[in-house]
């Protein structure tokens, strides 16, 4: 190929490219814009997106958290703390429960670790404050009145411990208590 031929090709390529670019620009000039005017307009995020943490309730409306300390143990930034205690009916619960959202990195490990589906991350990501102390959430701030993503689950139906949920042997997949005094095979 001669030098002139090569020059012509590169000019042609350049013009085509400019043309294509302008064409795209022109196309978008007449398209509906995709920018959403946040915060005037708010998009519905997927249910499993990870933001503000809540404590959910079981189908009976009772608190699910049994204060087993697994979320606080797994938390990589140690932003969860709690104290377990016992209710008169034998249920274990959190006397207090605190999440420091100033420290939380929304990794979702707590939700993964939770054996009772109590702690869940919600799509509510708008959590900015001027005063950092208002980012420290107590149990009252964390509790919601629904079951979140796993609405049907009730831990005490499966746990096998006697509570007001029912005595031994009355839960899911349990035989009635053994009669140790029987000699029958």
């Amino acid at each position, binding site marked *: 190929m001669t030098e002139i031929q090569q020059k012509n090709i590169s000019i042609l390529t350049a013009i085509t490219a400019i043309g294509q670019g302008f064409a795209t620009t022109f196309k978008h000039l007449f398209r509906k814009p995709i920018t959403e005017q946040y915060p005037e307009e708010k998009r519905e995020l997927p249910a499993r997106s990870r933001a503000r943490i809540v404590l959910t309730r079981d189908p009976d409306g009772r608190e699910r958290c049994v204060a087993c300390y697994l979320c606080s143990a797994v938390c990589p930034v140690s932003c969860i703390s709690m104290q377990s205690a016992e209710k008169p009916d034998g249920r274990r619960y959190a006397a207090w429960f605190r999440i420091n959202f100033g420290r939380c990195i929304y990794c979702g490990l707590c939700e993964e670790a939770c054996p009772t589906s109590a702690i869940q991350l919600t799509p509510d990501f708008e959590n900015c404050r001027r005063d950092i102390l208002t980012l420290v959430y107590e149990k009252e701030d964390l509790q919601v009145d629904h079951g979140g993503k796993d609405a049907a689950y009730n831990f005490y139906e499966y746990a096998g411990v006697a509570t007001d949920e029912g005595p*031994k042997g009355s839960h899911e997949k349990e035989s009635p208590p053994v009669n*140790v005094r029987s000699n029958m095979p």
Partner: protein
Amino acid sequence: MPTLTIDSRQISVPGNTKVIDAAERLGIMIPRFCYHPALGAVGACRVCAVNVKEGPMTGIQMSCMLDAGDGMVISTHDKDAVDFRMAVIEWLMMNHPHDCPVCDEGGHCLLQDMTVSGGHGMRRYPGPKRTHQDQYLGPLVQHEMNRCIQCYRCVRYYREYTGYKDLGVLGIGSRVYFGRTGDGRLESPFAGNLIDICPTGVFTDKPARFKGRKWDFERAATVCTHCSLGCSTITSSRYREIIRQEAGISPDTNDCFICDRGRYGFGYANLPDRPRQYRVNGNPCSRQTAWAKALDLLDTTANTNNPSTVALLVSARCTLETLVTAKHLCHRKGWHGPVWDAPSGNDIKSRNALDALAPELVATMKDVRESDFILAIGTDPVNEAPVLTLALRQAQRNGAHITVIDPRPVSLPFDFEHLPTSPEEMGDQLAAIVCAALGGTDLSHLSPAGKAFYDDLVLRNAAATVPDEIVVALKKSRHPVIVCGTHMVNEDLPVLAGECARMINQPERSAGLFYVLPGANGFGAAMFTETHTNAGLLLDKIKSNDIKTLIAIEPEGCAHVHSSPAMAGILKSLDCLLVMDYLESPLSRAADVFIPTATVFESGGIFINQNGTGRSMQPLYMGGTPIFQTGRTGPPPRLFESDIPGAEHVPAWLPLADWMGLSLSPDNSKRRLEILKYTIENEPWLSALPISGDTGETGIKLRIPNRRLNEFASLPHTRNNAGNSNSPEISLYTVEQTFGTELLSSGSPALDEVIPQIRAAMHPADAEFLNLADGENLTLVLDENHELPCNVKIETDMAQGFIFIPRRPDLPWPVPGFAPIPLHPDQIRREKGDLR
């Protein structure tokens, strides 16, 4: 020494070692549930399977049942073995409930660990789970039978190891049940060990129920301070509160187990009314004010009066550092003391005991467990040093003959011989046993003093008769141990016991000597307190105005006697009373200057147990008011604060060091090492202790300075006045009980429920003489100001002429140091009206 190969690594082990132990020496932890070093192997759980590649029998075998043999080649991670173990765990998990989140064992559960490491993650069996009803087992142990994996550890421990019979296995086949025949408190004072020994959550710690997880606790190895044995413990604290205590492992002392007094006795450190503030004349003040006031008072006394009018009182719950600092402070300043605040006479008896404790005779708990003849004299093991009972039980299981000579109704969970004898006659019986056993032995090697001692024994021998089988057993024994108490004995008995041990210690028979001392640091207190004085004499001196200033450091007896009006009067005649303590007592409330001290959990420290082993304890936590007591039940404060509320306490040695002019670093941990260095450098016989303060798992055996240079002591030829046996008087003695009499644990709320009602134990003949029936309420009139309501308990197995009541710290007692009181029948009244 067979040499075997485990996972391609060679190891030589002593004969009779199981493969599971040999692997552990290599650092290979083979899974196990039923195997426990203290209980041995039964091969019940099948989870310790390994593959024997070369050996007498190849293939899958249980490593806990297999003796290590020479030339064996064993693989623990062979596919067959791993698959076998995984299948076993899956079977074990088939009926295990889904309750780990609400189970207190979660986090230190062997079953959890083995399930995860065994690789069983998903449940495949869809059928129903077996369930069990739980039982109420008392306030200390929680029962949750669903979690059981039938390893039989609990009953093997409870019935075989400790000898108690009220927990057992019920039912057959897949319905096997571990519990009592009905609801009720576990009778054993060692029941708390079920919590440690259960590999899953069937037995859990009830007072610590739902308080936290292991990973959140500040944990440290500690030494139990509730008796003189110095058992190893592991203490956990969280949010400035001690949560629970577990047994540590120490082969020379407690092996793997502790008593419930040690396990649940820590509550005194958490008490809401624990004094945490400095006080001057009863009013809270700052540290500087109290410090200055104390210095001012001491200066005034030293200037206006003679320094010998200042007395320093210490007790067996002080750490070694405190005792040594107190001793040097007294010497330097010319103060009176340090005086050991021990129950009446126990100080002298303890000193006598240490004089007689020859290094070659010192027996540890391990020696007691391995001995074949035990003569316990003047001691009630379950009540004075509970874990000693377990050691005696192990000896008894191995065929040892056990005799207890004591006036009290001694009850032990196994067969033993009890000779209920009055304290005056105990020495005669000991002499009779030793004389009879030595009869016909060549004693020509004895020194003149030894011969004189033997003659003395022969003289005493005439006064008592003892059952022949004891003598026969002693003659046959190779490792006899004499256990001697220091409470219910005469002053010369510890010496007599020590010399008798030396007498029977012969080439073919290595004898041991084991004293039970009062208090955790009774050994240290006996060594570092002034010998010519005691708490009773100190009170006399206060009465006669010879002592005007009293500095009481963590006192024991004095604090309680103060509840009597007479004692209050005595203390009023003091010019100045300085109290340093972590417990509130009548004495601390009366103090002119009160300095709150740190508990051993907060300050750490060294304790010397009854056989002279120094054990150190690192501080567990900083201390301070527990978060739950800081005024709210809700969450902890939201704001950071630089100082800890209620953490003004100082170790008891700090003010002493300050008054002595020692310059210590302001940094806590540096200061601790400095005082330790001072302690060790100033007491030559402590030089074996490391300056770093780390005495390791087993502690450091201290060489006891032998004050008598291996020569036999001379004893009084006649026994002490035994009193007129025809006299109608009955001696009222205070005795120790497992729960409720030891000062620290008696303040523990967890033990409230297990502390028994005050009952006066008496012999049936005495009860008949007094016309009293078992269970009857009566009032003991101690003197015109003191009356003691209690309940009659008739005990056939005790000496006649005594009434024993538990030595509760709050017992109104008219004489200092709980000295025994002779009671005339007129002083014993029915609840309503006189006896006759």
